[in-house]
């Protein structure tokens, strides 16, 4: 880089770093306060040990950060592998407007939620061990999950690089990264399958500790299928919020295809939840769990499966059939609650279920959990306001892999405009 380019680059970065938009919005205030509080809490945690901020328990070693941010949060990042599958493998152009945002959300989710895993490690300075080969615990599922997280973050990052190069006007680099997309997407889908199910496999050895209604050898498969509709439900929520919050950054074609995309996602959700429900029933039959249904735990299980799996499935179906976006949104919200319930049930609520003591997380744990989510949202917003995630690619981008809506014949779009002519009533 010559001097001119150098100073130009610095100016570009400093300009981009300035906040755009109002600074004192309610969301900004709440999130900044939470993040600052979290920093203080984490300082205490690292100096005085985990027990000082976490409701530590020898019986339930994993607290909110692993159970909620990692095991539940990563499920919601499953939208990336589904959407990239549909756009790049199946070639369904209709989802192209949301691909970049979904990949970005997943990238940030893995960085921050898998990052939250670091917070819950007792000796995080040793985390380098399983990575540099000091000791590969290859029999461990967590080893596999950790490695996949790292590799998948890399894949998502490469998938996102074309957007970054467009923002930074790096034309040659863009072509390079765009050429890697297919390979990285395929690798990412294989990785996702394994680590989404791997999160479930983490609990396979805890058989005597998890209530039989929730434990089965099929936990990995159920986790994988649920990550499909968890991710898509989150994409629906993301799109809903994005249409309002980021409408200045959104390309017109994206805004107009919003309804279509939401309804199509609703259909995929309803079918995958239908399948998941039947898988759950199959597992139930396989484990001969009927004896457990008539008990408080049984009722809780029914609430989770009927109220938060079957019900949103039907809502998605109804919303799709009636072309009603509001119902689809409600269904997505219910689904998200259901996924949180399911993951928390397996990892903590129904874990050591015979132990009568109630283990509620401390307020400090909750603050840090939310701080992690807020940081992710803030970074997401920073990127979306500056890079062509929702917006259209800059004009110098050629070729089919542009960030445009599905390819319409432009004729047909203007045609509809033409038809809006006024008809006059003739009077005599």
């Amino acid at each position, binding site marked *: 880089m010559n001097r001119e380019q150098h100073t130009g680059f610095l100016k570009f970065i400093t300009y981009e770093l300035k906040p755009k938009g109002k600074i004192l919005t309610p969301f900004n205030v709440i999130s900044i306060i939470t993040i600052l509080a979290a920093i203080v809490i984490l300082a205490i945690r690292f100096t005085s040990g985990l027990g000082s901020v976490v409701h530590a328990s020898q019986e339930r070693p994993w607290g909110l950060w692993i159970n909620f941010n990692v095991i539940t949060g990563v499920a919601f990042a499953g939208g990336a592998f589904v959407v990239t599958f549909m756009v790049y493998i199946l070639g369904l152009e209709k989802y192209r407007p949301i691909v970049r945002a979904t990949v970005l959300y997943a990238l940030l989710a893995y960085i921050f939620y898998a990052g939250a895993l670091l917070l819950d490690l007792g000796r995080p300075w040793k985390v380098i061990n399983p990575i540099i080969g000091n000791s590969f615990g290859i029999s461990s599922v967590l080893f596999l999950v950790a490695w996949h997280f790292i590799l998948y973050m890399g894949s998502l990052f490469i998938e996102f690089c074309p957007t970054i190069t467009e923002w930074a006007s790096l034309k040659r680099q863009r072509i390079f990264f765009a050429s890697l997309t297919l390979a990285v997407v395929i690798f990412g889908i294989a990785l996702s399958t394994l680590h989404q199910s791997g999160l479930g496999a983490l609990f396979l050895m805890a058989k005597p500790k998890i209530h039989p209604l929730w434990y089965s050898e099929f936990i990995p498969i159920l986790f994988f299928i649920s990550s499909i509709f968890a991710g898509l439900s989150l994409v629906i929520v993301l799109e809903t919020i994005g249409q309002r919050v980021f409408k200045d950054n959104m390309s017109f074609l994206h805004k107009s295809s919003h309804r279509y995309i939401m309804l199509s996602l609703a259909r995929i959700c309803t079918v995958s939840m239908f399948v998941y429900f039947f898988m759950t029933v199959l597992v139930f039959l*396989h484990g001969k769990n009927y004896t457990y249904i008539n008990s408080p735990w049984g009722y809780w299980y029914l609430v989770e499966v009927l109220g938060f799996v079957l019900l949103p499935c039907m809502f998605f179906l109804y919303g799709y059939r009636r072309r009603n976006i509001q119902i689809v949104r409600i269904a997505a919200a219910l689904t998200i609650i259901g996924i949180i319930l399911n993951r928390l049930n397996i990892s903590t609520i129904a874990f050591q279920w015979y132990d009568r003591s109630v283990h509620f997380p401390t307020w400090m744990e909750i603050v840090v959990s939310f701080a992690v989510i807020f940081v992710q949202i803030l970074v997401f917003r920073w990127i979306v306001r500056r890079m062509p995630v929702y917006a259209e690619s800059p004009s110098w981008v050629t070729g089919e892999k542009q960030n445009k809506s599905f390819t319409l014949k432009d004729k047909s779009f203007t045609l509809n405009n033409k038809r809006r002519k006024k008809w006059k009533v003739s009077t005599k």
Partner: protein
Amino acid sequence: MEGFNKVDIFDTKGIEYLFVIGYLLFLIIFWNVVNKHERITKQIKKVISTLSASILRIPQGLFYNRYHTWSHLEESGVARVGLDDFLQHITGEVKFTRLKNPGELIDKGDLLTQIDQDGKHLKVFSPISGRILNTNSTLNEVPEIFNEDPYKKGWIYKIKPSDWMKETNSCFMGEEATIWSTEELDRFKDFLTGGPMRKYSSEPSMILLQDGGEIRNNILSELPNEVWIDFQKEFLNFTH
């Protein structure tokens, strides 16, 4: 205790296999339920092909009302009313029900007649007020009359009008009627893609319409009751 009692590790397999069979059947049903309206969309798409303005018959000397009825005052001072070629083309073979009897009074805007087809129906409203002198009985005896000749042999009522001049003031006639009919055809295409398509399909209307897309004859006869209801509400009763 192992080794002392009989243990069957596959004892749930029977139920599971039955369950899977049940699931597969359910899946077929479910998939059809999910995609039911896709069928309507596909029908509409196939059908956007051949009704064009050039084949609509619009005799210039008749008064056309926005409800797609025509009225004509004969030399004897008796007016004949009927339905126009546009309605005939899009519905096809219909039965006329709720016909009024001679001697009854009718007001402008009252129900003129109802046309039925396979359980679907459309209400048509009267363009003029007056006393009904005659009802065309051959309409239901020989239904093709309406399709072949909606303006002469296909008349519905002969009416002695009570306020002809004022009520036909807002009707179309002559060249204006032709222009209006063409616009109505466009408006009908818009209705098909904007209304039923939007309700029963998730695809945006943009993709569907090609330049010069024509509509197939008797299109409404191929579409379900929901579309007829929408047509009544949004197209026929639309006041502008």
